[in-house]
């Protein structure tokens, strides 16, 4: 009878280990998408290493989940199709959860809160005729602008947003708040002396979360648990202080 009990115990243990979902160190890594040239969220440092607030948060979450992460760099416009087609597992980008996006992918719990900024010379307000608005192609800001019927000037990456204004191709820029911080660090941009207005609209601000491939629903629970843990144990705050001037949670 003791042998039968042993076999029974083994059979119980096996599914537990299989179903835990935690991948061992030598199992295939999670494919994580990040943006390029979007400081301070996601960029390459002097040595060419990928870093930034989103990237480091993603690394911390992967380490908390005890899995390997393989980072892939994409543009904002390519991000959503790649994820929703299942060619990647996680999008380590601050995505605003919209009804349209909800049909294509899953969302983790938010890891920061954001709003959008309208940067233009004082007197230049949204919706004015002849105002070209620089936005990142494929972003929520672009979608909002098109809906409002503005003239858009899309660019590929966040880092390129400053150039159209400096060159005069665009008169205003609609950016997520954190991108605005890095724009302000640019001296040429600063010299334009643009005024900052916070645009309050549900499509433009709110909770920003990682995206999860619709083919990997089991990742949602694990990522949320890992996020909760790093928010409590100080890891999140350290990364916050490293890249951003205030608490963005």
């Amino acid at each position: 009878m003791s042998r039968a009990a042993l076999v029974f115990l083994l059979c119980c243990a096996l599914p537990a280990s299989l179903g835990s979902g935690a991948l061992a160190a030598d199992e295939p890594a999670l494919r994580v998408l990040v943006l390029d040239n979007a400081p301070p969220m996601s960029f390459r440092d002097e040595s060419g290493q990928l870093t930034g607030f989103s990237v480091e948060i993603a690394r911390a979450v992967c380490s908390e989940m005890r899995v390997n992460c393989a980072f892939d760099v994409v543009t904002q416009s390519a991000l959503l199709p790649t994820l929703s087609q299942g060619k990647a597992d996680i999008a380590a980008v601050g995505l605003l959860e919209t009804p349209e996006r909800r049909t294509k992918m899953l969302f983790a719990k938010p890891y920061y809160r954001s709003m959008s900024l309208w940067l233009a010379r004082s007197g230049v307000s949204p919706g004015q005729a002849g105002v070209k608005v620089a936005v990142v192609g494929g972003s929520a800001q672009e979608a909002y602008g098109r809906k409002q019927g503005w003239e858009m000037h899309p660019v590929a990456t966040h880092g390129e947003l400053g150039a159209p204004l400096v060159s005069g191709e665009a008169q205003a820029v609609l950016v997520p708040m954190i991108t605005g911080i890095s724009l302000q660090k640019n001296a040429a941009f600063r010299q334009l002396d643009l005024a900052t207005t916070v645009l309050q609209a549900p499509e433009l601000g709110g909770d920003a979360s990682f995206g999860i491939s619709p083919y990997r629903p089991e990742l949602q629970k694990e990522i949320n648990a890992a996020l909760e843990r790093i928010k409590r144990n100080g890891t999140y705050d350290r990364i916050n202080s490293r890249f951003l001037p205030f608490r963005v949670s």
Partner: protein
Amino acid sequence: MIKSLQAIQAGRAFALLAALFVTAFGAAVVLLALDQQRVIEATSRLQEQTVPEIIRFQRLARNLEQLRQEGERIFAVSSHASRQQSMFVVTLIASHPSILEHPGAAQLARETEQFLGDVVRQAVADDRRPAMRYDEWQRLAARLGMQVDDVSIQGINLANNDLVVATSAMKLARSKLMMALILVGVFLLGFMIIVRRHLIQPLQQINLALSTLSADRPAPEFKPSTMLEIQAVEESICEHHALLIQNEETRQVLEKLANKDGLTGLMNRRHFMQSAEVELQRAQRYRRPVTVAMADLDLFKKLNDTYGHAAGDAVLRAFAELVQDTLRQSDLVCRYGGEEFAFLFPEIGPAETEKLAERLRARCDAMEVPLPDGRSVKATVSIGLADASECPIEIALKRADEALYEAKRLGRNRVVLSGPPVPESAFENEPDTRTASLF
């Protein structure tokens, strides 16, 4: 109160007590479990909801502090670019959802943003303006500092609620546990008292009764017991005692029967021999005189043949009655054979015994025995005496028997005393013929 209850089965009584205890204790455990649940709920609420809230408050405090620092920086730096950067951060913080959530913080942040925005704009025009407004800034900064403290304390105190709930629940649980322990103690005490009073003490009394149970002592008395099983044992002890008495009586009856001769009511031969042995030894030890005698009803067979066995029995009975009437209290007599009787007379010598025997013979001679059919018969007896103070009973009886034989030979209906002991060889030739008057 316990005595007035009817007796119940011990098993049922203890089952009832156990059920009562289990119910009471179960209720106590359930109440304790409720308290435990409250504590668990409070602590898990603390962990799941309150701690994230506390963290949120801490981050809010941090952002307010950051506002203050950016403001200080605006006053500290001299380059417009740096001021612009700090002002930008101030704008972002003041509009961030984390600040807007908290009405007090939102209000203060808006004020700060407006003030600092003014300062920065004025600084563009006149570089000295900021210094003039520093005092104003310090008041604002102080308010920001106080708001930071308030928010921090608010956050920490969120935990208080849950902790107070948990603490009060634990205190309640502690007092409930104490009550449960007291309950257990009371039950145990009550249980022990009951066991002692209704089981152990009755058992001790039963043990005492059993150890002194005997036919000579009175029947044991028990207090009415409350346990049916104990009562049953006590009743069976009383029954046993009655049985002992019955047995004793039966034994005595049997003994008597074993010692008596059924027809005459006299001792039987066996019993006589036992008693005579004892009496003889006593007499010989203290050197007292003692005499034995053998008597035989004359021509008894002829009487049986003539008048029938019933008549013979009647004669035997009558003679036995006569003997008992004539003899003294201490004399032993038994029916030795069919019509033979043996006697032992303690404390008297042959001479006095002869007188006694003579009296018996005479009375027998005079006796008329009525028969059932109306007739009456007479009988005579021959008696032989022998001194038994210096020889064993068998020898004495043998000599008395020889004297009896002599009496028969001399013509019956007489008493003959045995002479001094004759050497063994003489017995083979002829019996002793000397008369009683030798002594």
